[in-house]
């Protein structure tokens, strides 16, 4: 070895060089850089693809959660008046003049509804005020204060002016505050939202509780099965594995439909129970379109995600360890608890985290079998996107959920490693 390096170091300076005279260190660094670049270039197309079809859309959603120009873009003069004056300033004639001019312009452009909707998000019941005054806006003449107050005396409400001041800025934290049941009062202080609007924290809590419960159920059901699969001879376990993988490959909607068929009032389970006399015809169990339905169906759907990581950790555990513990006098329970269980912990961690992460974001199953009490936070995001059309609030709720999921994902990567994710 020493001779070989001596041969390489033919240069009089004593440095190691390659055949063409470059220092070995630079040549190696260059070759490595080229290899790194090549590897990166292979990944680059996909990275750009994901950037455009996934990261940018989510970035746009995050932007939407703090930005809503429904008011500021359509009421420019009034927004300028708010920008000029101190918070808490009582509206003067100039403000009413700006309001009248903006309403006239908005009525012409048919955007009064947009403005009213934006204010309505913060202060329910104000949309009709805007639309009705907008219809009368064409006839307004100075002095505007009297004209507008005559059209509707509600315009004198200081809370309304405080709210309009808040929404006159396109960028506002209000949607994020609303997503965690907070609001800003007239002076701009952060306060708790009124009790009838405090639903989101409760829903986040419910989502996490249900996802946690499903994780525990999956662990309880998945552990024995994974253990059986891991200890059976390979031929038998491969055969039984099909029973785990088939649900995994079956359409989510099919599995949800099956649960509706099984669990509904006139469904298979209730009919069987009535036929065997366990319950009477009047006391059929309500197992679907509520939380119970969501939990049963989601446990079934997520169970393979628990069994597969558990199995891949359990399979390589040598059965001799437990036998050795038994031969040293441990009872079978002690051998399981002190010797076997600790070795399966990585699998338990991987499976539980994966099931929890997937459970927290579930949408389809709760929407179809959840009824009112089984709705999760995803369903509320969909409600705000499709029905109430409060897209900024939907985006803010989605951003909070995304943040929580990403923390869990980071934890998963730290504890388990993304590379260890296996499918079947």
């Amino acid at each position, binding site marked *: 070895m020493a001779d070989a390096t001596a041969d390489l170091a033919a240069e009089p300076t004593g440095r190691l060089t390659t055949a063409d005279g470059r220092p070995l260190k630079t040549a190696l660094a260059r070759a490595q850089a080229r290899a790194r670049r090549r590897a990166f270039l292979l990944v680059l197309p996909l990275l750009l693809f994901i950037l455009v079809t996934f990261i940018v859309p*989510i970035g746009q959603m995050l932007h939407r959660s703090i930005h809503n120009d429904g008011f500021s873009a359509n009421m420019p003069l009034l927004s300028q008046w708010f920008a000029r004056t101190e918070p808490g300033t009582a509206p003067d004639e100039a403000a009413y003049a700006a309001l009248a001019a903006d309403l006239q312009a908005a009525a012409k452009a048919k955007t009064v509804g947009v403005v009213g909707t934006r204010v309505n998000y913060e202060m329910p019941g104000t949309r009709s005020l805007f639309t009705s005054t907008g219809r009368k806006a064409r006839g307004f003449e100075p002095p505007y204060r009297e004209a507008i107050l005559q059209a509707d005396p509600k315009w004198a409400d200081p809370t309304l002016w405080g709210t309009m001041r808040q929404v006159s800025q396109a960028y506002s934290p209000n949607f994020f505050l609303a997503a965690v049941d907070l609001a800003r009062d007239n002076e701009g202080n952060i306060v708790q939202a009124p009790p009838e609007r405090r639903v989101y924290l409760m829903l986040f809590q419910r989502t996490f509780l249900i996802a946690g419960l499903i994780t525990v159920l999956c662990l309880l059901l998945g552990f024995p099965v994974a253990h059986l699969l891991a200890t059976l001879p390979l031929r038998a376990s491969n055969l039984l594995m099909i029973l785990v993988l088939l649900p995994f490959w079956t359409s989510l909607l099919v599995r949800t439909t099956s649960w509706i068929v099984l669990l509904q009032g006139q469904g298979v389970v209730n009919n069987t129970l009535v036929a065997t006399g366990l319950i009477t015809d009047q006391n059929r169990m309500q197992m679907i379109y509520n939380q119970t339905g969501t939990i049963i169906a989601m446990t079934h759907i997520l169970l393979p995600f628990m069994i597969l990581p558990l199995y891949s950790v359990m399979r390589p555990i040598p059965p001799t360890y437990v036998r050795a513990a038994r031969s040293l006098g441990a009872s079978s329970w002690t051998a399981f608890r002190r010797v076997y269980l600790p070795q399966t912990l990585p699998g338990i961690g991987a499976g539980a985290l994966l099931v929890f992460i997937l459970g927290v974001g579930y949408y389809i199953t709760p929407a*179809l079998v959840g009824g009112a009490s089984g709705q999760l936070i995803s369903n509320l995001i969909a409600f705000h996107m499709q029905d109430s059309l409060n897209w900024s609030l939907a985006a803010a709720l989605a951003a909070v959920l995304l943040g929580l999921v990403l923390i869990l994902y980071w934890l998963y990567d730290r504890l388990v490693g993304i590379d260890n994710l296996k499918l079947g």
Partner: protein
Amino acid sequence: MALPVYASPLERLWYYTYRVICALIFLFLIAPILIVIPLSFNIEPYFTFTEKMLALDPTGYSLRWYDTLLTFGMANPEAPRTTAWWVDVWNNAAWVRAAKNSVIIGVSSTLVATVLGTVAALGLSRPEMPFRRAIMAVLISPMIVPIIITATGLFFFYSSTGLAGSYPGIILAHATLGIPFVIITVTATLIGFDRSLTRAAASLGASPTTTFFKVTMPLILPGVISGALFAFVTSFDEVVVVLFVAAHDQQTIPRQMWNGIREQISPAILSVATILVIVSVALLATVEILRRRSERLRGVTG
């Protein structure tokens, strides 16, 4: 795990109880999938076994719900079943059109996901890859991020770029959702890949392209096909993104099922479900065969 000879009676009892518990859990896993198959042949519009069905009376069973799949949405379902009738089915029947859409979207998005995903997996499995872990985390994230968030983001993005309601929009979105599966399966295949094979090919004068197609590709093909099947199933089963970004007339099978379950659930849904279960059995069998072949190719045992 045979019962050891030194087991106490209590342990013997537990051994059998444990097997029964496992059997019940397997039943829980598989029964809901199998139950829809007999029910889809129910002659009555109910979701439960009628007495005739339980008595295995042939008059309790029928193919009427499968027939509905063909006739629903047709221009003239009562016409005699000639070639013209079948043309009508092919062009107008709601489920057939949904199936066509699903296949077009599924195949296109699978192609995009598989090509991009396989190339990226080749790069990711090289030891020199910089920022490997971070990039991998980004590429897997479409699988982890709740689908409703992805759909919301795509809704905003597509409405600002004009992709909303178009086929390319849905195909790109589904490709994104399928990519994590391709990456996971192909990198798993590449873990056992013997790198000296590509070096041997290069030393014998093969260009990198020849090496890839003649040496690397045949070895990783089982993994690539499994990944492609995963991506296809992901697209074939996806409903939330379609609900958010597709146009009103762009029906797919899952969307049609979703509407069916939400509005009026009829046993026709069960016949679709049965067909889908058969499809998934076929896919699972293919993947199993490929996995064994791949293990044999790579010399993995046990």
